[in-house]
């Protein structure tokens, strides 16, 4: 069961951006150039883009008038395989950047981001119609699910659905994809899929969101960090070869082993000192570090399990109200943890580029305000990047 090369996976994530709609006079082609995926998958658009081709080897799926996915049939070494590639599709950006977005039940029986799930359900029937007959009699088939940006989140949900509904192998390949679910989802996702190739750029803000308690799959695993970028830059989210750096360029390799691997940082213990707060910068590195410090503080103070349990069932409090309330209680109970909380909040204010970064009180109101400033700063840049695919 071979995996796609990084180059072919990136080509698939890129090519699906061509399929939005036919020209106004109804002309439609797929420019493949010398893409290496030519030797891996068969794409036949002879019956036109708007209606799916029944019985053919390529199916273009159109949601109303906009194409959102391609399904291809494997050839050569991928003869038993299929590929599903999904574009960063038009979904309501508020779903992604609203810190209080809800959760809903996913195909692997864990809770996932309600916005992504809704978008996935809107395309599931079309995917099912095409994939169900192909996978019915082929227990040893492999489906490669590919996507960039929100398309990556949708590819994750597609992968889960295929794995739970059909007896097939499923590989997942994502580029600059946001986080789909929380710990339970990520764990189950990691355990059930055959392989997950998660690719990011150092300064791409989209993989940072939604913020913790949303986490990435593979859970406690590695991701492929395709560049050495730092800070936060909306440019870094781009897929195409003409973007800088552009995932198509940075994934231009035939071997996953040659790419830089990076372990999940949220699992490290991080305790931030208040007097060092000015070392924080507005960067994906510090966003990770701050999440890590928040988790560490909750664990140190014995609040972690309770907070996670409440987050998972969804209470009337929003998640960040819940967190702020917990931090207030933690700070009241112990001078040591109060100091650790001050360190965390001070770093948050510097990260959010606030003019005044002194932390003089640890009230619910103040903590909640610091959270707001931090979330706003991060979500603003992520929203710019996400707007790019609307």
């Amino acid at each position, binding site marked *: 069961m071979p995996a796609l090369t990084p180059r072919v996976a990136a080509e698939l994530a890129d090519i699906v951006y*061509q399929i939005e709609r036919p020209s*106004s006079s109804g*002309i439609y*082609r797929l420019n493949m*150039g010398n893409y290496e995926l*030519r030797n891996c998958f068969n794409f036949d658009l*002879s019956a036109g883009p708007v209606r799916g081709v029944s019985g053919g080897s390529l199916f273009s799926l159109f949601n109303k008038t906009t194409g959102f996915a391609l399904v291809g049939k494997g050839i050569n070494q991928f003869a038993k395989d299929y590929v599903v590639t999904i574009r960063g599709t038009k979904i309501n950006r508020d779903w992604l950047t609203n810190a209080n977005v809800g959760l809903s039940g996913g195909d692997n029986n864990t809770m996932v981001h309600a916005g992504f799930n809704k978008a996935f359900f809107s395309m599931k029937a079309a995917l099912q119609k095409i994939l169900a007959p192909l996978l019915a009699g082929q227990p040893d088939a492999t489906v490669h699910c590919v996507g960039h940006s929100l398309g990556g989140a949708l590819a994750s949900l597609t992968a889960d659905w295929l794995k739970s509904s059909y007896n097939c192998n499923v590989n997942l390949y994502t580029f600059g994809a946001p986080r789909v679910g929380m710990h339970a989802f990520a764990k189950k996702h990691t355990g059930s899929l055959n392989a997950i190739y998660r690719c990011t750029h150092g300064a791409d803000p989209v993989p940072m969101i939604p913020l913790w308690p949303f986490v990435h799959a593979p859970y406690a695993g590695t991701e492929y960090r395709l560049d050495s970028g730092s800070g936060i830059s909306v440019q870094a989210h781009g897929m195409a070869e003409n973007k800088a750096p552009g995932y198509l360029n940075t994934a231009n390799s035939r071997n996953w082993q040659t790419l830089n691997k990076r372990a999940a940082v949220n699992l490290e213990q991080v305790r931030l000192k208040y007097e060092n707060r000015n070392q924080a910068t507005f960067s994906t590195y510090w966003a990770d570090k701050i999440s890590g410090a928040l988790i560490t503080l909750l664990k140190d103070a014995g609040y972690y399990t309770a907070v996670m349990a409440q987050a998972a069932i969804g209470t009337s409090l929003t998640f960040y109200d819940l967190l702020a309330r917990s931090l207030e209680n933690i700070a009241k109970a112990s001078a040591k943890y109060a100091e650790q909380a001050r360190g965390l909040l001070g770093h948050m204010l510097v990260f959010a580029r606030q003019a005044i970064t002194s932390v003089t009180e640890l009230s619910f109101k103040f903590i909640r305000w610091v959270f707001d400033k931090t979330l706003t700063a991060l979500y603003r840049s992520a929203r710019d990047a996400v707007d*790019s695919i609307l």
Partner: protein
Amino acid sequence: MADLRCTRKPMSLLRLGLSVAVLMIFSQQVMADMFSWLKKYDVYLSPAVHGMVTLNGKPVAGAEVLRELTYDKDYIDNTVTAADGSFRFPEKHIRSRKPGSLQEMRTRQVISLRHHDKQYLLWYLTTSSITPQQAIVQKLASLQCDLTNEELEQVFTNFEKPDFPHSTFSICRWNDEPVTHFTE
């Protein structure tokens, strides 16, 4: 603001003006970041097009040629082949905010011709570039289209990004470099 009257407190107003000016100067860096998505950018949709249409080597006059350029929306123009079979389209660029908001955009150039109620594809290319690309400029400057030619996906050099050659679907042929042909 009611107590800010010029006649009674001229200094306050001056101070207010100064502090606003200072604020504006110091926050320009931040403003530049925050409002970068408001900037308009030039998006180069198509170089100038010059083509020659023949049927079995003889000029085809009076055939309708359609150029459809797609970016955020469709930009369409049309023309008719002259007595010698030639046709032209001007270069086309637009102002758009999309590159600044870093949209994952593609530009598509489609040129088709209608002759005796049959549609022929002279050019179909998709690119993520918003600036002119040398090989595309060259190819579109000389489209040699005999209507008896088969439509092929033709792959040619991308000078700016050599790892990602261009491809166009076309009945036209070029003699300037060897191109890879794919029949679909």
